[in-house]
């Protein structure tokens, strides 16, 4: 039938898929053309402003996408409830802050711990037993969707559908050099998000646990035969994914100003786009993919109405699936 078969692994070790100099130049030329188009459309200040906004959104997407990708890579589970983990983090912070009277930073830390517990708890209650029974892909996907419903609507049941806000300053802003502006909260959100992302990279690169997580996400069987305690590392992955999702939820809720129980499901599409752009299962890929999606969505507002941002994210998702489904940042991998 067709020449392009998805089941075949592309680029085995020893057979690196070399991209020619032409292809590399073409990539550079495309980047230059895109930059020129951006400048022509918006002018330098607008482009710089959109870049600042894109970095804020992108850093949050990256935080959410890393955990989604690691969970997929190690468990072959698309956690459709991951977006609702972000919502859970935001509402947990709201509860600890406004309900229990904790200061916002302490409330945020409580929220991260609570989201990590949610992830680990579901691993022990649902995912581990299901893996032990050899559950199929459809079972796992539908259970993840069911979990997403339970989490989202349990939050809606308790907190109500009306928009909420965390106790952050949403009016003050800083003037940056060159006539750019950034909201005070957005600046904090961006700084914290990139600091945590840098820590995530260091953790994944240098620590033994980080390497084990990446190894598991890359190839479970290989990791197991080389002595990785998979059960333990999977728990760590869920806790790690939960902390990052909780943080992303708190930061997103802060940057947005107000949020409702659907906030996580809406962001999930951008997270999927980030994970696929980066190569499903790759942690670094998801990180770069998240920042890229944030930038692309904000840059798109220079050309088209801001309401189409999410549609742009979807266009990227379909384009990547069509052109290079293994993703752009994850290296060569199986599909």
């Amino acid at each position, binding site marked *: 039938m067709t020449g392009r078969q998805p089941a075949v692994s592309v680029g085995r070790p020893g057979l690196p898929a070399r991209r020619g100099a032409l292809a590399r130049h073409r990539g550079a030329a495309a980047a230059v053309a895109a930059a020129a188009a951006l400048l022509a459309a918006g002018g330098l200040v607008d482009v710089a402003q959109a870049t600042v906004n894109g970095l804020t959104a992108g850093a949050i997407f990256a935080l959410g996408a890393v955990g989604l990708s690691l969970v997929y890579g190690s468990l072959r589970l698309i956690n459709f409830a991951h977006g609702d983990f972000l919502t859970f983090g935001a509402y947990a912070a709201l509860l600890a802050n406004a309900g229990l009277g904790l200061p916002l930073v302490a409330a945020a830390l409580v929220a991260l711990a609570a989201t990590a517990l949610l992830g680990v708890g579901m691993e022990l209650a*649902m995912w581990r037993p299901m893996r032990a029974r050899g559950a199929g892909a459809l079972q796992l996907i539908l259970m993840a*969707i069911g979990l997403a419903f*339970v989490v989202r609507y349990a939050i809606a049941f308790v907190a109500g559908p009306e928009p909420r806000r965390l106790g952050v300053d949403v009016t003050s802003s800083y003037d940056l050099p060159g006539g750019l502006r950034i909201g005070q909260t957005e600046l904090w959100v961006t700084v914290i998000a990139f600091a945590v992302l840098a820590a995530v990279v260091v953790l994944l690169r240098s620590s033994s646990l980080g390497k084990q997580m990446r190894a598991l996400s890359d190839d479970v069987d290989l990791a197991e035969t080389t002595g990785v305690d998979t059960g333990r590392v999977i728990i760590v992955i869920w806790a790690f994914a939960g902390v990052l999702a909780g943080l992303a939820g708190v930061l997103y809720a802060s940057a947005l100003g107000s949020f409702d129980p659907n906030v996580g499901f809406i962001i999930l599409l951008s997270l999927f786009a980030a994970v696929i752009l980066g190569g499903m299962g790759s942690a670094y890929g998801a990180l770069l993919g998240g920042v890229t999606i944030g930038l692309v969505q904000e840059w798109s507002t220079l050309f088209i109405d801001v309401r189409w941002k999410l549609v742009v994210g979807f266009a990227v998702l379909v384009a990547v699936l069509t052109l290079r489904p293994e993703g752009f940042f994850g290296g060569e991998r199986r599909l």
Partner: protein
Amino acid sequence: MTTLAVSLSAFGRPEFWIGVGILVAIYAILTLGLQLNIGYTGIYNFGQVGFMAVGAYAMAVLVVEAGWSFWASLPAATLIAVAFAVLLGLPTLRLRTHYFAIATIAFAEIVRYVIQNADGLTGGSQGVLGFEIAWQTIALSLQADLGLAPELALVPLLIVAWVTLAVLFAVLLALGRSPWGRMLRAVREDEDAVRALGKNAYAYKLQSFAVAGAVGAVSGYLLALYLSFLSPDAFLASVTFISFAMLIVGGLGSFPGVVVGAFIVQVVLEGTRYLQLPLTDHQVASLRYILIGLVLILVMALRPQGILGRRQEMVLRG
């Protein structure tokens, strides 16, 4: 105890059962498409509501904006939904099922955003009205012919919805038993074996997806007539997941199960409206979705072939 009682009088009213009956037929049609994809072909279509939305809006826009006749708009809108399925399926059906699942759920959400944002064409959140005049004429004359009381005004739609369901049910049942249907199940069971026989598994998956798109569009027309007003909120992703709950309650791989599942789930969902609990309307609505979530989790954990499904119809693989 009185707070937990169900006000049974609601169940005695014919309007309740007419409304439930129409929604059961609409959801059953939507779910027939899912059954063909999931139960027969093993492709994980999580965006079925997208085709319902594309069909309904294509019909409404053709009638209201382009001035087409209602009857001419139906086949055209069906073709548009099929075109969407083919365009979405072409790049994504070659990939592993997980990518397809993500792409379809994203597709359905994006359809909804586009409807919401392209307000010049679709009316956006304001919705679109006035597409069902041709149908209203027929419904009114049917109502007069049958001598129906005003509160039974929806009976003609109930009849049309169930006739449509019966026709599509018969067509899909026949297709499922045809050589084509056997090939779909072969693709579900072992795609490599199908390829080894020289058959194009990808083409069968694409055809199955296109048929589901057409069937989804038909459910969209009936929903449009039932609501007589289209807005993006009628096509939330949750519609697909309620449809999944019906699918697995009825059992995977069974078309009769679809109708049974749609009936059970719809009656339970509508019945919760009459539960007299000390809760706000919004909390009851949340409870309905929590219930759907629990059905999905528990049925998949305990009986993955579906409550009424047969185990041998569903060989579960990773």
